[in-house]
């Protein structure tokens, strides 16, 4: 039972263009969402998060959008750079408090940014 779905296993974009990575969730109790980035042979690293009280959070080139009614969030990277090439994991939690043991991850989307 996949509570967090990343339906695109891979995405390829040109350097300088926008990358849009999508994530859907099924559990209406989720109210805190995160994106992690993972390079090969490394552990995932936290990228950006959003609480359900917001619909947008921006950090430099990275913006996360949340559509609660559609149970959908997306990560926009503008402009994309070759160094952004990595696997991006979407994750969701039922609360900002209560422990990360409730964090649920998607399968990840492999982003390739071509020079």
């Amino acid at each position, binding site marked *: 039972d996949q509570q967090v779905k990343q339906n695109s296993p891979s995405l390829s974009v040109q350097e300088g263009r926008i990358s849009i990575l999508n994530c859907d969730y099924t559990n209406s109790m989720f109210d805190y969402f995160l994106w992690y980035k993972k390079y090969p*042979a490394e*552990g995932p*690293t*936290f990228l950006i998060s959003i609480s359900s009280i917001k619909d947008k959070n921006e950090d430099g080139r990275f913006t996360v959008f949340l559509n609660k009614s559609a149970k959908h969030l997306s990560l926009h990277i503008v402009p994309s750079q070759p160094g952004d090439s990595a696997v991006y994991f979407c994750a969701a939690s039922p609360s*900002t408090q209560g*422990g*990360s*043991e409730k*964090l649920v*991850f998607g399968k990840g989307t492999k982003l390739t940014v071509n020079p």
Partner: protein
Amino acid sequence: DTAVSQTPKYLVTQMGNDKSIKCEQNLGHDTMYWYKQDSKKFLKIMFSYNNKELIINETVPNRFSPKSPDKAHLNLHINSLELGDSAVYFCASSHRGWAGELFFGEGSRLTVL
């Protein structure tokens, strides 16, 4: 200075053996975790542990056990290894009660033959 380090990074062993993966964090966090990334690429939590509470994912076989000698260490012991245990195991840490940013180790790839 590596924040969360785990050893070994690669482990190849035979079915039926017992093995351990060690994890150490120098971030001063009070909660540590073990995650498993299987062949389908899902990252699934196995355990979360602080000095007061061990929370076990009910799907984890009891052949897997966490051992924490102190706050900065959480080792993973696996008894009677099976083929299906082959995966990448990630250690992570965070502050207790914060369902947000986890700091992960580099992962330990376990191959059971």
